[in-house]
């Protein structure tokens, strides 16, 4: 049994220890917001937080999650109570097909937690996710907006 927390709730799973955490989250726990796309850590669609650090869950065996605290897109905010990054995403109408957006948001949340006022270069360095619809331009705008919104709410 491997025990860990997801979005504040405790879980223990008996998946094969080498199973990527992505599939444990999606299929064993049922949190489908984290997406599979490349399976090789290239694209970031499966990004989550493990002990607050961004981790690409397609390349993270569940055995390393033992005792860890995991946050997925479902744990960031809800439709009723969105996270400031999600608010900015809605304000800028960022998503198109939307498939990669959970990953982008998880990376952006972490970026703004550590660096509340990122420059364009900071954003370039931190957000390496891939998007085939080309939402990059609005992702950048939304991160700047979220930074502003965060400051105003403080």
């Amino acid at each position, binding site marked *: 049994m491997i025990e860990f927390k997801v979005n504040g709730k405790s879980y223990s799973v008996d998946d094969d220890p*080498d199973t*990527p955490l992505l599939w444990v989250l999606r299929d064993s726990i049922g949190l489908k917001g984290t997406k599979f796309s490349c*399976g*090789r*850590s*290239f694209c970031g669609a499966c*990004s989550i937080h493990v002990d607050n*650090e*961004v*981790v*690409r869950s*397609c*390349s*993270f*065996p569940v*055995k*390393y999650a*033992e005792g860890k605290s995991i946050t997925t897109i479902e744990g960031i905010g809800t439709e009723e109570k969105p996270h400031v990054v999600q608010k900015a995403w809605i304000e800028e109408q960022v998503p198109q097909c939307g498939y990669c957006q959970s990953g982008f948001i998880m*990376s*952006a949340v*972490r*970026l703004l937690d*550590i*660096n509340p006022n990122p420059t364009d270069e*900071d954003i*370039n*360095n*931190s*957000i*390496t996710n*891939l998007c085939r619809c080309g939402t990059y331009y609005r992702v950048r705008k939304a991160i700047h907006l979220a930074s502003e919104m965060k400051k105003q709410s403080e």
Partner: protein
Amino acid sequence: MKLLLKSRNIIKQVYSITPLVLVFVAVLAFNKVRKTNNSESGYYPIAVKDTTEREKSIQKFKEVAKVLRHPRCINCHPSDNYPRQGDDMHKHLFNVQRGNDDRGAIGMKCISCHGASNNKYSGVPGAPEPDDPNKSRWHLAPLSMGWMGLNDAELGERLLNREMNGNMSPEDLVKHMEEDPLVLWGWNPGGNRAPIPIPHEEFMKTLKEWINTGAHVPEDED
């Protein structure tokens, strides 16, 4: 400098003839080493016995350098802010950066993808911390330990200068090469990655010999 270079070429000839000359040359060489690796850098050679030793030491250094210049080592010892990848040492895909702590940019840390072991499904390489098999150690060597594009003299200085090498004594250096899981990974990288071609044991032997023979480094012109 030129003088020394030339004199060394004739060392072998004079060696068997006159020990006196030999001592003279050795002193010259010692001074030279002190001059390039001056006290500012904190490094003094361990010992200089004679020029044969120096010759031998430099030979050993060259063998060590071959390993250090292997993609498995260089890729994490870049001289700029980009990790490298692959046997062709290309810039890491997706604009991956060194970050402030050599562990990646915010939200895009080395450990965001690289785990405590090679991932057999995703193909992403990984290595553990020495004291925790579940914790990933993947990171870059500090910029001061960047080896990319260096000539022998520069590479040697990077290895030995404690202000540049993470304050490692030669003994620490041996330990790093002998035990650091990230270093050992280079001999067993998995996937299609070329391992370092010289066996680790042999490399350690050569490394120790280099240090024991005075850790001599070729001059700039080499």
